[in-house]
């Protein structure tokens, strides 16, 4: 077989990496290159580009290799697939990262890999890339490393030292699905590894609070990803699993990735359009539990078989099921109540609370604060404004749900 060029490898190994949704480059330690080295980090991260799939491009997201000894059914790189295979050398990944970084294409590197030879061997190769960037090239940009769950503790410690964020994907919400779709992956090994990471991240934070010289360990925390729509798991199952993951492991993010057809797919999988709206609704529900004070049980409608309504967002759906709690008076309601009003986000609520200390809010005032009044106006009382009878009407959902649209190809 002819040697692949770096360009060909890049083609294969970025194609192989795109099913990982994570691209965050935020919330790590602040660094710059004023005293040497290359690169910096800002608090909030930067998205340097966007692809037509709507996902941001912040990092050079590639695999070291897409050879893999595992046979996870949903994965483009599973060992039974006939996709083209390639493997980067450590130097090639380092060169690409630095060349891209110097041209301001990226914030850093997100490196993952298929499992080759052994978990420890694979992990050691990933660590070698990060180590070369940090120690030989004094790279101060962002590094996200995928961890191999069963890799030994020393390798994990090194990975956490060089990386800003580490992650292990739980892939599917239940053990049964995992057994079926990812037979070599051991879900219990994955959760044990995530538990270990939480302890290390906390320990490093505590040590660094007392001494700036204490070694860092993955300062931007850990995240994970669940695939949506490959197995039969309901939204309820997925969201309950998320709550447990956030609660147990202090995750920064759980990413939901709508399962999309992959080249050379397995017969076991749905070959259909990725459930993008479902993915979107899951993110909205996830946000409601983390920032809006909702419990998973409240978000799901008992009568809907554990699935979120695809037509309207979960907060509006909740409000329509609890109309007796509305309208809410924007001049008097407390923060918790305002957060539950459809159309008000956390920032808008903060603005309302700030402004009403000094003046009573009219509906136009709320309009200057909130993004859109179309939904909101039906659920609030403001100075000189009460919503009409529509709030009590059965037609409200029809009225507020987006009109079905023909999707057009550009």
């Amino acid at each position, binding site marked *: 077989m002819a040697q692949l060029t770096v360009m060909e490898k890049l083609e294969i190994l970025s194609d192989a990496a795109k099913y990982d949704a994570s691209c965050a480059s935020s919330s790590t330690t602040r660094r710059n290159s004023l005293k040497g080295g290359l690169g910096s980090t800002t608090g909030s991260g930067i998205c340097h580009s966007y*692809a037509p799939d709507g996902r941001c491009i912040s990092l050079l997201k590639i695999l070291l290799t897409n050879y893999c000894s595992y046979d996870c059914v949903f994965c483009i790189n599973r060992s039974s697939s006939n996709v083209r295979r390639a493997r980067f050398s450590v130097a090639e990944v380092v060169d690409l990262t630095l060349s891209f970084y110097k041209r301001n294409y990226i914030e850093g590197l997100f490196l993952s890999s298929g499992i080759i030879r052994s978990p420890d061997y694979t992990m050691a190769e990933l660590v070698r890339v990060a180590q070369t960037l940090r120690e030989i090239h004094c790279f101060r940009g962002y590094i996200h490393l995928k961890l191999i769950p069963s890799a030994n503790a020393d390798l994990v410690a090194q990975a956490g030292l060089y990386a800003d964020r580490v992650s292990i994907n739980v892939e599917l919400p239940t053990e049964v699905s995992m057994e079926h779709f990812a037979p070599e992956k051991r879900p219990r090994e994955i959760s044990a590894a995530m538990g270990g990471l939480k302890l290390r991240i906390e320990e490093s934070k505590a040590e660094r609070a007392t001494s700036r010289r204490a070694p860092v360990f993955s300062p931007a925390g850990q995240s994970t990803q669940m695939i949506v729509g490959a197995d039969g798991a309901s939204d309820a199952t997925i969201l309950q699993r998320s709550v447990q993951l956030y609660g147990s492991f202090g995750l920064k993010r759980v990413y939901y990735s709508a399962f999309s057809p992959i080249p050379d797919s397995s017969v076991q999988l749905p070959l259909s359009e990725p459930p993008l709206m479902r993915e979107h609704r899951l993110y909205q529900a996830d946000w409601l539990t983390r920032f809006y004070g909702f419990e998973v049980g409240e978000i799901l409608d008992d009568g809907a078989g554990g699935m979120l309504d695809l037509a309207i967002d979960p907060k509006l759906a909740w409000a329509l099921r609890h109309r007796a709690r509305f309208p809410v008076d924007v001049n008097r309601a407390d923060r918790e109540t305002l957060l539950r009003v459809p159309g008000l986000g956390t920032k808008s609520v903060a603005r309302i609370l700030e402004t009403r200390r000094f003046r009573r809010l009219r509906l136009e005032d709320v309009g200057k604060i909130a993004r859109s009044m179309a939904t909101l106006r039906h659920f609030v009382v403001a100075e000189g404004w009460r919503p009409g009878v529509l709030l009590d009407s059965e037609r409200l959902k029809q009225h507020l749900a987006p009109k079905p649209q023909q999707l057009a190809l550009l």
Partner: protein
Amino acid sequence: MAQSGILARLDHPADFEGWRRQARALALAEVAPARIDWQIGTEASGLFAGLAERPPVPANGAELRVPRDFFELAQAVVCHRDNGRFDLLYRLLLRLQREPTLLHAVTDEDVHRARAMAKSVRRDLHKMTAFVRFREVVGPDGGEAFVAWFEPEHHIVERVSRFFVERFAAIRWSILTPLRSLHWDGTTLHLGEGASRADAPDDDAVEGYWRTYYANIFNSARLKIKAMKAEMPEKYWRNLPEAELIAPLIAAAGKRAQEMVAKAPTLPPERHLRQMQRLREAEPGSTEAPASWEQAWQAAKDCSRCGLCQQATQTVFGEGPLAAPVMFVGEQPGDQEDLAGRPFVGPAGQVFDAVMGEAGLDRSRAYVTNAVKHFKFTVRGKRRIHERPHAGEIAACRFWLGLEREFVRPKLVVALGATALHALTGYTGSLASMRERDLALEDGTALLATVHPSCLLRLPDETARERETARFRADLARVGLLVPEMRAA
């Protein structure tokens, strides 16, 4: 007759210091906003041409107060391309003297406008840090150097310079824009005149790799063009090397996805079949009862005898020397034990260790384990709240506890808390009546019962805690009397 106008000159379009100096003087002289003509550079004055006065000089000691937020707001607003920005800020400055909380009134017309302008400037700043694309050139010393061409919406070049200096301090670079340009030589920043696109290089060998990456990281099975455009507005596309791919990628996307769907699954490659063969041969596949502690420990990792394994992170098996003379049995792993996979490492474990030491016992000689091997909890926000295991869960886990007793064969077992006592003996009555008594298990092994160390942590008042800790210490001291080899040397 109308009052004469006053000409206020600013050095450049985002001259915050110039605005501040003159606005201060004008405000102290109580000059009405309508009388001031804010002019940038030496351009001919318009509105009040011919009748302009110089700004007044403020009296010594005169003061002007503004909230700290106003500085931040004004520094952003002066960068906006709107010609009315200096006038708006001046009006806000005057109003703030009479209405000190004005900035909180986000619904006020002036405040709303200023905030919207600041937001637009901050967004442009952020987008510039994202969308500047450098191209490599040969530096003056023959080394590496980079040049970028960018067209910002607002007057942000100077403000954004800090970001690029901090990021690329060791590299020579220039960013050219129509109005001003930045040049960094590795040590100092030089602000230059505006430039034109022709002054920047028109290609870079690495852009081919970048476009390859862009095309391949895109998932053609999902199209969210609106989401892309919201974050990467088309006005920026002309200076992004990857943007030329957007239209062809979208055009080909539907076809590519259909091909994936239409293609029949293939047979796995030979490499895969060989590998499967190797794995099958290596499979242990034993279902017999564990014959050693190691086997029991391994097997327990996959335990699903009750539902607790669904939520818990991992099985927390007992640990300690297999020849230990004493086995301590707790209730269940807590939050920390669940994460670490080891028993008695959390707060209760620390109390246990401390009191063991005070009672003169050597902790390292004991085997410690729990009646239930998985953590049972409910999630409250970011915290996990411990829940008591019920009888079914205790019964299911008795299998593992039995194996541990079989392989360790301690002389004495100590039940820490009612759950442990229940698991060991089936007794469900009060713990208090069993304390400080020499008990025995069915097989004759000596048994002591005492509290679980976590209950000492839950006692709210200091005296009760001291009293109960002393009792617990006395119970542990009994262990040393019954089994002298447990005593620390």
